[in-house]
């Protein structure tokens, strides 16, 4: 058991370190698809470190915003740790914790956006709200279902589809980055953040992306693979693979519009989730 705890913690730490590196990798991939060179593989870390070195400016909304930003960071790391524990300890509690952290994070983002006392930020917040509404409830439902029922049959892999879809939406990549939408609302929910606050915000976003890239694997893998080391190996590899796939998809699409997205994504996710439930409801054997 101690081995598993150790591995879980190690993976979580690895996640924090790797997330910015994967982000740089994503930027490289994006660049190559644009016929550009792209930044070096440590660029996002350089960016974070640079931001940390800058002057701390407390935005209009006051210290409260700083508090929210750091709370968000804490919650993101907590989510990462919990998800990694999920890989080894398949108790319902873990799954519930994951669900709680995910929704707490969305709430924190909303509070942060409204508290910034800036019109663009508030608009971004409402957009974020609509993004979250179209995916999160289903993701949480899937997480809890898997936690409660477990996964025993390959048929359950039907659930990969809605999980992957909702996980992608939650990473706030194009076409769902409307909360930030630089050409439209000038960085929306991040508009008042700068320096160390922005660095913290960036880190928590990247950590969340890492979690979302790992969720499809971590939700299903432990039920099919027993060896902890194999889980580690496959977990890391498949997370990277998922991240790369997400990255390529983001390059290929344009940004969407709130109303358009709510309908389409919600319906698709709903349908896929229902499919999963139906498939799982049919008794085995």
């Amino acid at each position, binding site marked *: 058991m101690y081995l598993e705890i150790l591995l879980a913690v190690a993976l979580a730490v690895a996640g924090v370190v790797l997330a910015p590196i994967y982000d740089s990798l994503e930027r490289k991939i*994006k660049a190559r*698809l*644009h*016929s*550009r060179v792209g930044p070096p593989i440590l660029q996002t870390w350089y960016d974070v470190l640079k931001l940390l070195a800058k002057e701390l400016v407390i935005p209009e909304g006051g210290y409260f915003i700083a508090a929210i930003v750091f709370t968000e960071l804490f919650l993101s790391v907590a989510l990462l740790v919990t998800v990694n524990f999920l890989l080894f300890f398949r108790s319902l509690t873990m799954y519930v914790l994951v669900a709680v952290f995910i929704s707490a994070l969305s709430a924190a983002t909303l509070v942060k956006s409204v508290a910034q006392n800036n*019109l*663009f930020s508030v*608009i971004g917040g409402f957009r974020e709200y609509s993004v979250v509404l179209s995916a999160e409830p289903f993701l949480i439902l899937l997480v809890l279902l898997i936690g409660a029922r477990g996964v025993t049959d390959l048929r359950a892999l039907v659930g990969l589809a809605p999980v992957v879809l909702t996980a992608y939406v939650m990473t706030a990549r*194009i*076409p769902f*980055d*409307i909360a930030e*939408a*630089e*050409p*439209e*609302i*000038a*960085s929306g929910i991040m508009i008042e953040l700068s320096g160390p606050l922005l660095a913290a915000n960036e880190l928590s976003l990247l950590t969340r992306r890492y979690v979302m890239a790992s969720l499809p694997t971590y939700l299903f893998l432990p039920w099919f693979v027993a060896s902890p080391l194999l889980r580690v190996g496959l977990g890391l590899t498949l997370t990277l693979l998922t991240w790369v796939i997400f990255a390529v998809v983001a*390059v*290929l*699409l*344009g*940004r*969407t*519009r*709130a*109303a*358009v997205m709510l309908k389409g994504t919600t319906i698709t996710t709903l349908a896929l989730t229902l499919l999963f439930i139906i498939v799982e409801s049919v008794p085995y054997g």
Partner: protein
Amino acid sequence: MGERSRYLPECPEMGEVVRKLTEEYGGRVIFSRGTEVYVEVPRHALRDVAKYLYSSGAFLKTCAAVDERPLNSSFAVYHIFGMDSRGYDVVVKVSAPENDAWVPSIVDVVPAADWCELEARDMIGIELRGRKLVRRLVLPEDWPEDLHPLRKEVPHDFRPPSVKAGSEFRPAERGIPIGPYHPVLHEPEYFELLVEGETVVDVYYRGFHVHRGIEKLGESPRFTYQKIPFLAERICGICGFVHSTCAIMAMEKAAGIKPPERAEYIRTIVLELERIHSHLLWVGVAAHVLGYDAGFMHTWRVREPVMILSELITGSRKTYGLNLVGGVRRDVDKDKVGKIMKTLDRVEREFKELANLLTSVPQIRKRAQGTGVLTRSEARALSVVGPVARASGLYRDVRKDYPYLAYKEVSFKVPLYTEGDNLARVLVRVEEVFESISIIRQLLDKLPGGPVMHEKCSAVIPVDELIPPGKYAVAAVEAPRGEDVHFLMTGEGRPYRWRVRAPTYQNIPALRPMLRGDPLADAPLTIASIDPCFSCTDRALVIDVRTGRARTIKLWGGGVDACRL
């Protein structure tokens, strides 16, 4: 022309118009040449004249106010009406004596006159009777009262003190400011969108943040005719050659100088090259605004060979410095012709592929279709120009209506769409790229031999001797963004009055009907879809006061009134 007669009457012949203006409205012909006629009418008749011309299918191109007090103790306003279907301009002049300086407004008859009248009021200080006014359109909030920059006594390099604004306007509660600095804007301008939820209900516009005083500079002792094309070229960083060519054309018209045919062909080729690069740039920007950066990057990659080609031919990627009065400075030899053809082939092939890709991305199609709609009647009333007009069913293209340079020698299509939405504007520009490529190929094919500079002109000869004072000229060129008009009154060695009306100036007022009723998310795309070139728009008449001076006005100042027209 059959396209046009579906929604506009056919314009009368010049003779008939002249007769009507002189006999019925008491006008007097000041000057005429084949493509323009200048008629002075008494003040009280202006509105009726405007009504008559407008109902005869004319489009108001612009109006220019001139301080003619040194000449005849009066102020004058010249309204330039274009009879598109016949290809000639009617310039209607009204005068106001110095001590009774007012002219009637024609904005209710011709809505397109709105901005140019206000600019006349700001710059010359002439009173406009019969219309609602705003405090300032072009001059900044902290400009002193009663200081009108285009008056002859104001030196071009005069820097007035900053005067605190009398009253400061607050925007409505839910106004969303886009500008003056905003990621989607490439130059500072200020749009205030009033929204309910995510739907835009009204728009206020406040521009002219980058006034550089170019028109005034052109009149100043510092400048001569030979320097003007270099100044004109810097009106815009994308369509600079259009302005330089149009200014030169006006000067050549006024002086009666006809440049050699080869020079005209070269000018046309470079103009079309500029159109290609401008449209490619714009398509990239539109993709970026929609979040599709891949489209942006690749479109600009496809555009790059055009820029390199421009440098090869003219000496610079932009600001070509190619035009001089009487011709062009550089020739295009066989080797260059070959390179042009090769580059065009490559651009055509790659852009075709890219255009297909872009229109197939679902987000782009969905967001561009049905948004930012400008109906044809709105377009006609506002006299919009260029792709914006052609996407709303208005068949207007200076290259066809008032053929200039070598356009009479080539055959090409002018794409026309009727939906008037953002997608239509995208498609018009995409098709124009291919048409431009075809035009250049035709021109290169039949490029005439001969000199590229008129024998009487050269860089060294002071052109002043060739351009007498007291002449009029109107020249128009189809820029990538639409019709660019230069109005010129010649003086001694330099213009007496040089008015530039850039296409974006004409198109911005159309944003109001376009943005209303649409979701906020589409606002940036709609704003970008008129291909705004604020450098062109703002370039007019004020002295640049911003150097090192701290402003006392707030961001919102003037935003409310400026567009409540």
